[in-house]
């Protein structure tokens, strides 16, 4: 082991980046320590090597650094976190330093936060459904253990409440609750949002099983790029080493992408859509794809990222690229929210891709898939009829169309709407589904077979 050199002269400082020259033996991606007199130590990461010149990004930002007031040391190691079972119940900042007043984590297992890609042949196809107690999700957008299912929301919509409700109510079929853990990750969120989650975990008594990584809105932006990776590394450790079923809740991915854009533009990279870097897709995939289950290990990682769509635009690059990677999405609607429907889930653009293999006979009930299909198809028809009613008035609609209008209202106010503390099991949810479907004439139920209609229709 050679003696670590210290570099005392910084060539260039710009935004979150610093450039050093004359560096020997640096490796791509390694962590550097920056010591400034009279200030806390800072960490940085090598993001470009060219001959003896090193470009590094400084997690805590470069303010207060000068060309000569700092000494830089290369650690020779990539960004690693120390793991031990003691991390359960702890809180960390965006790059994994304890912020709960407790001591550091000791252990001899160190994990590179970038992880490694899961081999597709090692994956176990997720099939066990998670009952969230939310009718619209359980019936129409069923969450499956090991799935990555984002919530697409907008500013001011109750996505945090919904996420907290899911964490509180989620029942994993067939597992004992003591193997259940939550990794909560806040990226650039407001203090009160982070507090809301903490309180919600405390109230439900789950706090001992929660690991928190918190990067608040006023914390350094560059840290944000590492925050989700720290959280997912922890989740991988809990799931694949200790056998926990881990639910990762992450809010807000939009802040993460913005941090990425900021670093990218500081690096003068060629931008693609809306100034986001061309590798945004690969970068997001390297996060989302860490969810899943493995044949060779016990646990699972279910990933529930939350992102706020800028200007409620679902075609914005962040929700767009996310939707291409994740296994579906839960979309919240401002209209429903204003209509006093909680949770304001717009089921039409929402989707759970893994649902087809996790519901039906042997999982939920035999008729569930057909009922879900029928609800989608009827509610989609309601949209057309509503726009017609806007023009000609509801009273001029045909009788069938009027029944559709009534169905639409009942669907939103009885089926979708439920109380923040209300947990409905799948039986109850399907029961309400039949209640609202029975508003429609029998003949309109074209996705259901005759015997199912005979058994459940109440018209």
């Amino acid at each position, binding site marked *: 082991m050679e003696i670590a050199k210290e570099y005392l002269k910084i060539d260039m400082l710009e935004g979150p980046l610093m450039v050093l020259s004359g560096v020997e*033996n*640096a*490796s*791509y*991606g390694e962590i550097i320590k920056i010591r400034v007199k009279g200030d806390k130590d800072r960490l940085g990461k090598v993001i*470009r*090597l*060219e*001959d*003896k010149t090193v470009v590094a990004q400084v997690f805590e930002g470069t303010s207060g650094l000068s060309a000569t007031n700092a000494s830089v040391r290369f650690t020779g190691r*990539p960004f690693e976190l120390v793991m031990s079972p003691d991390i359960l119940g702890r809180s960390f900042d965006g790059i994994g330093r304890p912020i709960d007043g407790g001591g550091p984590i000791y252990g001899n297992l160190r994990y590179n936060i970038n*992880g490694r*890609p*899961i*081999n*597709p*042949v*090692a*994956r*176990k*196809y997720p099939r066990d459904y998670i009952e969230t107690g939310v009718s619209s999700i359980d019936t129409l957008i069923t969450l499956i253990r090991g799935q990555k299912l984002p919530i697409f929301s907008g500013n001011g919509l109750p996505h945090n409440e919904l996420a907290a409700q899911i964490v509180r109510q989620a029942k994993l079929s067939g597992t004992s609750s003591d193997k259940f853990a939550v990794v909560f990750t806040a990226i650039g969120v407001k203090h009160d949002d982070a507090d809301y989650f903490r309180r919600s975990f405390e109230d439900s008594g789950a706090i001992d099983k929660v690991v928190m990584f918190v990067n608040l809105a006023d914390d350094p932006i560059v840290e944000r790029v590492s925050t989700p990776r720290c959280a997912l590394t922890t989740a991988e450790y809990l799931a*694949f080493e200790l056998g926990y079923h881990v639910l990762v809740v992450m809010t807000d991915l939009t802040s993460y992408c913005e941090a990425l854009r900021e670093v990218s533009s500081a690096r003068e*990279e*060629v931008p*693609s*859509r809306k100034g986001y870097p*061309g*590798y945004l*897709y*690969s970068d997001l*995939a*390297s996060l*989302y*794809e860490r969810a*899943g289950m*493995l044949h*060779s290990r016990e646990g699972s990682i279910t990933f529930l990222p939350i992102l706020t769509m800028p200007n409620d635009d679902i*075609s*914005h*690059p962040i929700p*767009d*690229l996310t939707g*291409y990677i994740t*296994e579906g999405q839960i979309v919240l609607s401002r209209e429903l929210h204003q209509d006093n429907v909680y949770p304001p889930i717009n089921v*039409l*653009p929402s*989707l759970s*891709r*893994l649902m*087809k293999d996790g519901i039906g006979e042997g999982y939920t009930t035999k008729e569930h898939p057909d009922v879900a299909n029928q609800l*989608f*198809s009827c509610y*989609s028809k309601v949209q057309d009829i509503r726009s*017609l009613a806007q*023009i*000609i008035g509801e009273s*001029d609609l*045909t009788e069938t169309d009027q029944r559709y209008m009534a169905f639409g209202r009942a669907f939103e106010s009885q089926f979708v709407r439920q109380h923040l503390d209300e947990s409905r099991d799948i039986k109850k949810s399907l029961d309400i589904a039949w209640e609202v479907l029975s508003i429609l004439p029998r*003949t309109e139920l074209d*996705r259901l077979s005759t015997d199912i209609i005979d058994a459940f229709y109440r018209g």
Partner: protein
Amino acid sequence: MRQMHDRGRIKMVNGPVVGATDMTGYKMREMVMVGHLKLIGEIIAIEGNDATIQVYEETEGLKIGEPVTSTGKPLSLKLGPGLLGNIFDGIERPLLEIEKNNPGFINEGIGMIAIDETVLWKVEMDVVVGQHLLQGMCMASFQETPLIEFRWIVPPGVEGEVTWCAPSGEYNIIEPLVKIRNREGDEESLCLLQEWPVRSPRPVSERLALSKPLLTGQRVLDIFFPIAKGGTAAIPGGFGTGKTMTQHQLAKWSDADIIVYIGCGERGNEMTDVLEQFPRLIDPASGRPIMDRTVLIANTSNMPVAAREASIYTGITIAEYYRDMGYDVAIMADSTSRWAEALREISGRLEEMPAEDGYPAYLPSRLAEFYERAGYVRTMEGRDASVTIIGAVSPAGGDFSEPVTENTKRFVNAFLALDKKLAYARHYPSIHWLNSYSGYIKILAPWYAAHVSADLVELRAEMIRLLFEENKLADIVQLVGEDVLPDDQRLILEVSKVLKIGFLQQNAFHKDDTYVPIQKQYRMLTVIAHLYERGLEAVRKGIPISVVRNESLFERVIKMKYDIPNDDLTGLDVLTEQIDDYFDSLIKKYA
């Protein structure tokens, strides 16, 4: 032969792009080993003494000054028996083998492993000493899987007289089985394994005109928007519109001999799904699991991006290899947009001047190069064979005017536009009948006339016209409601609904409906056309639409896809009679 050397040294690292110096003697597109871990890379630019390398593995931990070793050859695939039923990464490394050595995750520095060299194959030799071999000739054959016969052909560019050959027996892929003396008088030995550079198309004797459809058992494709064997098709659609689902259906049911499925930058669980499903699914033609005819290439979205760029070429090269044995091969690339984005990412790191949306200016030419490797050909051996390419496109924001969709449109002949609104209503496959097109209708008309019915093309045009009319009427209905339309127009609305729900919609999870033979597809369409004809006749006689649109009759037509089994179409005759009976008595009543 050039000596292996390791003079090169790393001088720059930027993500998957690595710069090296002291690289004189290295060639463009040469495969190299980078660093002490021997990561696999490919030279993509040379300037003086320096070279730029794209690296197919994670580059974290590389240091300035680490060696770059030459392999002396371009990025090549190892081709031989053992590909079928297997799953590989973007540069043909077997994922099952990697899993065995390192359970769970993919590590770096695995090296260049490919198909299993230890398996013994029962080879039936078909050459004799003294025979003059030409490229493309078959030297031996045996069953690679119960479904597919492996034909060992003389590699392109090889020719000579056989001086020695092994007797029939069990051999692995690296044992020499034939020795020939080539034109220069040198002796060359041939084994089952051969190598081929991924970026070069394999030669064929000649290209033939397309004439046969790739039958898929999917109604909206086989009848409305057919794909020809040897043709090209693109499936664009925003997320959630069912691209992957459609690709899976094609991989499962299309009547190609071999399927090469490339999961390019998509979800890991989708590949897992294929891996779990395909061995259980039975091919309707042969009764064997469809995995026996499938090769899977997986570069999921979290695997290294440079290998994503290569995965498309790996897939097409394997497809061409089986084509040269005389097979019809279909290749599904899901999704070509991820490949284009990989090009963009690497181009960005090279600081090239971007064209539209940050994509490099050579995007159209790369797309053309890829799609042009499809074709219906006569192989060197003289057999007819084909490679059909079906590429999914994932347009950003679901907007078809973005560069990848736009450019792909120029190079494909069938365009199967997936529609978000149809997907929201759970109308699958969500291929939109007005936005899609197939340039193969004319070419395939003689085939349809000879094998299905002479009036199929005419019938199809008539049905598309009906849907087009319906689309115009729907706009009016949106404004004033359905009641004000005259009855003949309301009939169009009603019959279009039957056409959409009863014909275009197809249930991939229903045992009969997931795959429908072309004969039944055609007969179903004639029943709907007949319903329209008789309905129109009644409406013209002044019979009100409320009676013409008989609930139970229309219902029976809609449900015929479920109620009438694929192997017994007499139900369709009965249904036609019922339509006639109903309208005959109706017309009599109102006369």
